[in-house]
């Protein structure tokens, strides 16, 4: 069902991008990547992905700031987001300690680095129908 769906990877770490790209490609998805928020914003508007894999700790602008920007755009706010970060512990992340504004809903899913491929793919399947 979800084969060929577009997934945008946003991470400043080239090896993470390379890894997720291969995993997604070998599972039938079409990955796109951005290593900073500026490029990510440009790509998300151009490609309009079906899902976004987003890192948090990045130079200049964090993944959280990108997420807030997405939520403020009518056409982009419904794209499901999976946060993939080293600061997540056992799948838990205190989103509200970063985003106080309660009108911004938390992202759909959190995954801790290093990822478990099966769990990663299952979560994507769940979010893209």
């Amino acid at each position: 069902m979800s084969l060929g769906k577009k997934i945008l990877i946003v991470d400043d770490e080239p090896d993470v991008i390379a890894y997720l790209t291969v995993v997604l490609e070998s599972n039938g998805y079409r990955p796109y990547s951005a290593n900073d928020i500026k490029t990510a914003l440009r790509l998300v508007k151009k490609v309009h992905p079906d899902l976004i894999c987003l890192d948090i700790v990045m130079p200049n602008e964090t993944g959280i700031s990108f997420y807030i920007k997405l939520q403020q755009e009518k056409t982009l706010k419904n794209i499901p987001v999976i946060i993939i970060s080293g600061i997540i512990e056992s799948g838990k992340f205190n989103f509200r300690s970063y985003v106080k504004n309660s009108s911004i809903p938390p992202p759909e899913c959190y995954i801790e680095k290093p990822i478990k491929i099966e769990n990663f793919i299952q979560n994507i399947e769940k979010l893209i129908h």
Partner: protein
Amino acid sequence: MKSKIGVDRRTRITNKNNRWQQEYQTLFDRVPCYVTVIDKNFRIVRANDAFRESFGDAVDRNCYDIYKRRHAKCPNCPAEKTFKDGKTHRSNQQGIGKCDQKIHYVVSTSALIKGAKNINYVVEISSDITPIKRLEEKVIEAKRLGAVGQTVAGLAHSIKNILMGLEGGKYIVSLGLKKNNQQMINQGWEMLERNFDKTTSLVKDFLSFSKGRVPELEMVNPADLVLEIVDLYKNVAAQSGIELKYEIDNRIKQAPFDKAGIHTCLTNLVSNAIDACLMSEQKGTMVIIRVSEKRNKLIFEVHDNGGGIDYEIKKKIFTTFFTTKGGGGTGLGLLTTRKIVQEHGGKISVDSQKGKGANFKMEFLRKRLMDLYKESKKQKIS
């Protein structure tokens, strides 16, 4: 009759004097600070109750003996200064109480008789600041633990990223083997190698950061320290199309530095500056290393005209495990640099705006460096 009146009056005056004396004695004993009167030989001639309670019987003992259990007067003794100039002097001291407890106090010394030509007695009034010192120590400890927590969290984050790279390399190699795809095998293998190297760098940086060593100070020429770094980086900079310049104030005399420590600091700052230039889209990028001395302050500066640092990042760079270099950095370089600068009694700061380059400055007071140098020499001898 006349004499009876005189006796009554004298009795009244004596009684009044006795009452005052009693009141002064009570005040002297109950005042909530230590009060002692010492003679020119630093011998205590009077001490109040508060003093006796904390330090024990004091009369006829020397103040340096009872306050600090020393055999000779203390260096920079404020009482000695008062004996000399008749003025009030203050200083912070640490003594030993009668139960061997540490007592921190602020002592103020003044002449017993104001304006006297020859000062024979000095009053020492000390306030016990031990509870404040303890509180300060607790705050420092809490900050230290907070910093440790942050460091551990930062370390965990870096390790998870490396693990992700290793997992990725392993996955791509095994997929390449399955598909018999040499390009994939190479890509995965390179990822594995890169992340093993990162592990080595992280461990090396972390060990150098966590070393709680005393700087090994020796007299060096600050200009030589700069020239060494220029020599080390001139090829790397030239290959990257970055101009590496230096500005040395030739009047600077030798100063005590930990050569290896300052070398590490300058290496970190210059490699950061080169990275900033490489990441910048600007043409004609350059890095300038400067050393100067202004008002007995030795200043090392590393300037670049790269991308600059924005306010949010500037807040974090010296305090947290922080990198803007993606996979290229461990986030420990500036933390280590700050630690080395502080071990020299110096300070580090950055002046930068996003898009306008950066200027990192390490400042060291020559006097402070000399004090540390003398102290380290004394320790070596003992």
